């Protein structure tokens, strides 16, 4: 089944300035772990929690059920809605996009499937919680597909966690299809564990007059390469891709955020903010591409990283590829530092060193933080910041 030779001949996905070929993300043994425990969702929150291969929590509001919303574990969806699921998977991120995505396509054995029919609108946030069970030492290979129908309006909050502390790898591919006029806010809080080395690839296909906004918080503790991409295919399609990242200890997080303006009058904005502590590395690559014919389009990007340690390494690389004249585009990037002199200044007003650091970090990420869709999600990001700061003196 697995066409190893063909997959091996595909190139690794490109994460400029991140050396990750040694992470061996292309050698995965999919885990088959199960659990009965629900770790995060409770109290009739709308959504689903999948841990390893088990779906332990599933709840939809009356309103969602009445409107025909489908949310289920990927394996179950393949059984119940086989033809639909199989047609959709691979339609946003091609089966052979790159070596790691292709491998995910061949090997995934868990995940989540979401289908939102045309015209459906709901106000409560749909939670998709995906937990990697790292108890057996095998790897997590998961796929998520979210199909949002024409003129539907939804807000999704996806979280990823590692449960257990075995050294493992994870490959998660997330495809989102936003049909004509759909309005989607897709927030992600990724907090995979220190011992999880991961490849995460998420991409949305945005049709005519649809809007998809990403709010991504990369708070993983291990080595991660993460790509988030918006293909603006339809006339007037819009996407804001906001990403924040915080790295600690000796970890590396290498991120690529891509917006491809294909349709006319498409708008793609990338906004990235990262903070780097200890000896860690954080790389932001921003790619804005406007193809010939995408007249009246707009591609903007801003990436800034802040280093709170002398031994940290940070990079912000903006790339604009423009093949059309009738467009607007711009980019800004910076790598800054908070040094001893600045800490002294903050502390000279009575603020403790710990609070001073927290201020810098929270302030720097504030704009994306405030866009998290629920109070709980904002709180979660703040507590992730606090949690990461505890390692600060290591």
């Amino acid at each position, binding site marked *: 089944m697995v066409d190893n030779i063909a997959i091996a001949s595909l190139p690794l996905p490109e994460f400029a300035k991140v050396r990750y070929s040694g992470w061996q993300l292309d050698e995965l043994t999919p885990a088959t772990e199960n659990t009965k425990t629900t770790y995060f969702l409770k109290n009739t929150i709308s959504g689903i929690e999948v841990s390893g291969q088990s779906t332990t929590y599933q709840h939809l509001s009356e309103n969602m059920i009445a409107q025909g919303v489908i949310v289920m574990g990927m394996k179950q969806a393949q059984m119940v809605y086989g033809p639909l699921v199989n047609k959709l998977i691979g339609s946003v991120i091609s089966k052979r996009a790159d070596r790691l995505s292709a491998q995910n396509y061949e090997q995934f054995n868990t995940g989540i499937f979401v289908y939102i029919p045309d015209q459906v609108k709901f106000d409560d946030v749909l939670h998709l919680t995906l937990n990697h069970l790292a108890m057996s030492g095998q790897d997590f290979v998961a796929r998520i597909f979210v199909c949002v129908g024409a003129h539907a309006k939804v807000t999704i909050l996806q979280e990823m966690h590692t449960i257990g502390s075995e050294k493992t790898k994870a490959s998660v591919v997330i495809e989102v299809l936003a049909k004509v006029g759909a309005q989607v806010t897709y927030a992600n809080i990724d907090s995979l564990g220190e011992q999880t080395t991961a490849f995460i690839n998420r991409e949305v296909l945005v049709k005519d007059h649809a809007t998809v906004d990403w709010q991504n918080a990369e708070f993983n503790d291990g080595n991660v390469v993460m790509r988030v991409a918006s293909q603006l295919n339809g006339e007037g399609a819009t996407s804001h891709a906001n990403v924040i990242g915080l790295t600690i200890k000796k970890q590396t997080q290498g991120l690529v955020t891509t917006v491809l303006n294909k349709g006319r009058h498409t708008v793609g904005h990338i906004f990235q903010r990262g*903070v780097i502590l200890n000896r860690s590395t954080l790389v932001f690559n921003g790619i804005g591409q406007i193809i010939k014919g995408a007249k009246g389009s707009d591609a903007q990007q801003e990436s800034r990283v802040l280093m709170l340690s002398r031994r940290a390494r940070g990079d912000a690389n903006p790339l604009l590829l423009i093949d059309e004249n009738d467009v607007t585009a711009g980019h800004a990037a910076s790598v800054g530092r908070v040094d001893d002199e600045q800490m002294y200044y903050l502390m000279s007003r009575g603020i403790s060193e710990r609070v001073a650091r927290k201020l810098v970090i929270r302030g720097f990420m504030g704009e994306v933080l405030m866009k998290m869709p629920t109070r709980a999600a904002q709180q979660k990001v703040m507590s992730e910041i606090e949690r990461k700061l505890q390692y600060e003196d290591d």
Partner: protein
Amino acid sequence: MTTLKVENLHVSVAGKEILKGLDLIVNTGEIHAIMGPNGTGKSTLSQTIMGHPAYQVTQGNIYIDGQNLAEMSVDARARAGLFLAMQYPSEIQGVTNTEFMRAAINARRPEDDQISVMSFIEKLDEKREFLAMTEEMAERYLNEGFSGGEKKRNEILQMMMIQPQIAILDEIDSGLDIDALKVVSRGVNSMRSNEFGALMITHYQRLLDYIVPDFVHVMMDGKIVKTGDANLAKKLEAEGYAGLRDELGLDVHLTDEETNSYFVED
């Protein structure tokens, strides 16, 4: 009453002795001014009091109300009542002015009695308007892209928000235009009370016309060489440091002496 007491202070920077036995007492209710030639150690004194890590105390002590500062971290010193308006304030990306000042106020209050957002905003608006600062400036990252004069004004805003017992103002007047100088002076004067004392470092008599000091100290070569009242500053302005040095019979070299006499001869 709060007292800042500097006793026989010797300080070295990068292995070089800058302060050479300095004594000074500042009480709340008093305004002190320190004047002195460039490079004489005025900023060194203020940074040492605040606890900047580059400045090594090699002899002597500094106390605030009997507590020895040597045992206190920078933030603890501030919470004990000290404030330093710096000659060159840092710019800090990521932290808005507002958030910064709120954290500074809250650092002085117990965890279960933090200032409410409403009363904080009210206070900020009041002080900000007093200093003719725009709302937009309060929302910007701390000092980032501020002009020289705006930074100085922002230092005074922080002082007015924090309401310290003893404030050291290091050249708060440099880089200010005439109107701004009046605004900033008004800010400092508004703090004058029995609960507030200040040590102002300045090069110009003009500031002391607006904020009339109770004491004027002249510093040369790492020591206070003369103390007087406001008239001492006027005399200095007229006669320069060389005159005072010769009067006191000090053996101190002044960097700009040759240049000055050159101009005189011209």
